[in-house]
């Protein structure tokens, strides 16, 4: 019976658990491992995490579900996150979201039949200046009018996300180069904050 954690993943997971004085501190890193590869965390993987840490699957789900960006259902190839924050809402994002759902015939948090898109309405995506904002796989598209959303997604389906993002994506950078490696490597050793140093020298 092979699950998600076998071979190298199992070794890595055990090493991760061993890093912490309290094994349950490894819940989030292990959830990241799974979601990083599969795009979501399946039930069986949560059971495996529970076994690795020595807790119950309910505790894994309880902790993981605190974070809305962990997904526990299989997602479409692209995750479409429409901002429902106050600026975007005032600029018509609810309407935008509704039209997308109607066009693709899915409900909120649903996935299209062809598995292309999953939809969610999120809290403030921190792009008020470009409201209404939409993220596709966390890449920003700004000033997306209520009439533009469907076209945007149809283009992505036809031309690919990279092409469309290069053309229409917002300036808000995704992750800076090297950031992914840095995240995977875990927290950096603690150094004094530059401002603290500056204040100390004043």
């Amino acid at each position: 019976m092979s699950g998600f954690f076998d071979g190298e993943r199992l070794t890595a997971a055990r090493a991760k658990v061993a890093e912490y004085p309290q094994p349950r501190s490894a819940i989030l890193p292990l959830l990241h491992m799974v979601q990083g590869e599969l795009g979501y965390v399946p039930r069986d993987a949560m059971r495996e995490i529970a076994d690795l840490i020595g807790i119950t699957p309910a505790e894994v789900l309880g902790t993981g579900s605190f974070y809305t960006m962990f997904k526990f259902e299989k997602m479409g190839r692209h995750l479409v996150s429409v901002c429902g924050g106050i600026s975007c809402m005032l600029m018509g994002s609810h309407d935008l979201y509704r039209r997308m759902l109607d066009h693709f015939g899915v409900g909120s948090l649903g996935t299209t039949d062809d598995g292309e898109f999953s939809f969610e309405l999120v809290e403030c995506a921190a792009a008020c200046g470009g409201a209404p904002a939409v993220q596709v796989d966390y890449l920003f598209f700004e000033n997306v009018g209520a009439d533009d959303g469907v076209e945007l997604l149809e283009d992505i389906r036809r031309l690919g996300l990279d092409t469309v993002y290069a053309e229409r994506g917002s300036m808000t950078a995704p992750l800076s180069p090297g950031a992914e490696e840095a995240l995977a490597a875990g927290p950096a050793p603690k150094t004094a904050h530059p401002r603290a140093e500056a204040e100390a020298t004043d």
Partner: protein
Amino acid sequence: MTAESVSITIDGREVQARAGELLIAEAERNGVYIPRFCWHPRLRSVAMCRMCLVEIEGMRGLQPACYVPVKEGMEVRTQTDAVRKVQEGVLEYLLINHPLDCPVCDRGGECPLQDHTLAFGPGESRFVEDKRHFEKPIEVSELVLLDRERCIQCARCTRVAAEVAGDALIDFGSRGNNLHIITFPDEPFASYFSGNTVQVCPVGALTAAPYRFRARPWDVTAVETTCLACSVGCRGALYETRNEAIRLLGVDVDCVNLGWLCDKGRFGYEFTAAEDRLECPRMDGEDITWGEAIEATAIAVESAASVAAIGGARLTNEGAYALSKFMRVVAGSNDVDCQLDDGLPARFVAAVQDRATFEDIDTAAAVVLAAPDLKEELPVLYLRVRRAVLDHGTALYVAGGAQTGLDRFAARIAGRLEDLDAADLPADGDIVVVVGRQSLTQDPEHLVAWASVLAERLGGRVKLLPVLRRANAHGAIDMGLAPDLRPGRVGTEDPTARDVLAATWRGEFPTEPGRGTREILEAAAAGEIDVLFLVGADPVADFPDPDLAREALDRTPNVIVSDLFETPTTAFADVLVPAAGWGEINGTVTNVEGRVQRLAAAVVPPGQAASDSNFFREVAERLGVDFGCGTPAATLAEIRRVVPAYAETQPSALRGTEGKKGVMVGPGPLAVEAAGVLPAPSETRDGALAVRAARTLYDMGTLVSRCPSLAQLAPGPVVRVNPADAQRLGLQDGTEAVLRPAGDGEAATWAEPLRRRVVVDAGTHEGTVFVPLNQGDVPVAWPPGLEVDVEGAG
């Protein structure tokens, strides 16, 4: 252990408090109630609900009283404007989403949120928007229902599940406005202690399926009583409405159950309302009057040369005493035995001088479990041992081959008893050794020999706790329902005790030890018993040799059975009388520690059912014996006279706040004698598996099968096999296995092989199989030392 006393000031009044204890608890001890939702005296503080905020001089801002330990000179104000404003704010916030469906909510009328709103709330809400709505109710288990919109997120239930029971099968999911209690999908809250979450829930978010919508708090009456689902003796409040028992709540007593109940105890009242209760005496299958039943029994006893009695562990002390007295004085026989051969030698139980109490477990350096799986058989004792290990650092040793719910906490697991010796245990501190039968196939003489040797080697540091599973087995033994004992843990041969008894009992009674269950049944099968009383006993289903039981009952001319229900045994009854049981009679019971507690009647027994004491008294009086024992109180008074160890059991000592602790019974004159050399353990035959045949919490026993909520939870006819053995034998999870006695010795006496569904279970020790008893299939014999060959079916 006593904490230092300090002076603190609460609302201008100087009071004494215990240093280091929580302010909220110390204030309450001094008569100041600080409102709270999340804090519970038996759970760790989390300070989540913010209802207990108070002002403390010198500390900035308001402080949660549930999180602040008291210190000398602390000045606390609980009634200031700032405090009131916070209390009103917390309640207004909670009521933003909490529905006002109190009129249809189980908690309405006894709801902490309702009460707090009245006492501390603002009276009005400024919130006019829609409240949250959820699909309702969610079945988090077969016994517990969740109405999420009522939840006020206090985390009491999740803490009970994780901290107390160790079953973290419920947790908070999501966050903020969406925060709600979840279970993992496909993994229900299947905890033996799930009902406790309902009891601690400060609102009606968690309700018990058997109680939901059954009654309103103002339509019920409650009596304080003792649970009899096992021999732990948890204190409980039994609720009744319209002469129907509808709820048992745990009563918090430090020394017994800490307020907790297991689900079998909590919902075990259901049998009292079962439709197939026996309501009328019967003879040869025909309804008769009580007068006829008494007459027939009296005539049978009068002309009998040999009378025996099996059972009595389900009776009150008063009932057991009446049976004991009846057998000795009226029937002239010591052939009495209450344990049905799944317990310990009664003489050993009676001889343990310095018996451990539950509180000894709290302070022991080590606990040795040479006992059945406490989680299955004595669940609330399991909670206490678990707490001792986790919170007090008690070292735990498990010995004898039983896989237990506590194995994961064990410092050492010894497969065989012989593998654990005094030298393996901590060199300092008190040691509690829990001794009980782990399997019907375990030789009890060997077990007590080992325990007595260990006790001798450890000397004064050791306290033994002999545990018998059956409800009031310990009380029954104290009342002399054993072939070699009289009331008071006294041997039948003891001349002094005989003189004490003779003053009250009058008449002659035998001094030679009588026969135990097996010998009685063997004699009966040989046609040597004229009258056999079976009192709440079902040997056909509940004795480890059912063929012998059937043969015995078949050959005995007068089988007189007293029971609550028809059982496989009642088919053999010549006279069958309907008994009144738990919840229907008053009296006392004695738990494993030797703690005498009150049992109270809440409902009237059905039909003509009556107490066993009544039956035996009536038969005795019909035979011209001035029997006494007219009421439970009169019987207890007689017990106090006859049994020195019970001298303190005055009614006044068993009532009121002090009475919650019950009365501890003193030791008798017998003493445990070390057996000297242990018999050598036998080797397992090649390929054969040792059998552990024992109870699980839920089974198809006489009472549990009449509790619809519980009967559905029985594991059914399964056999648990270690993964390594399963692989070796080619057994797959869920397939059928065939079990046959190994070898050709005396053991190999099953008419048919046993067929059971395989459960592959890493908790089962390699080289053994675990067979839960009483799962609705045909019972077979479980002789000591039995080993089986196991193979897949087909």
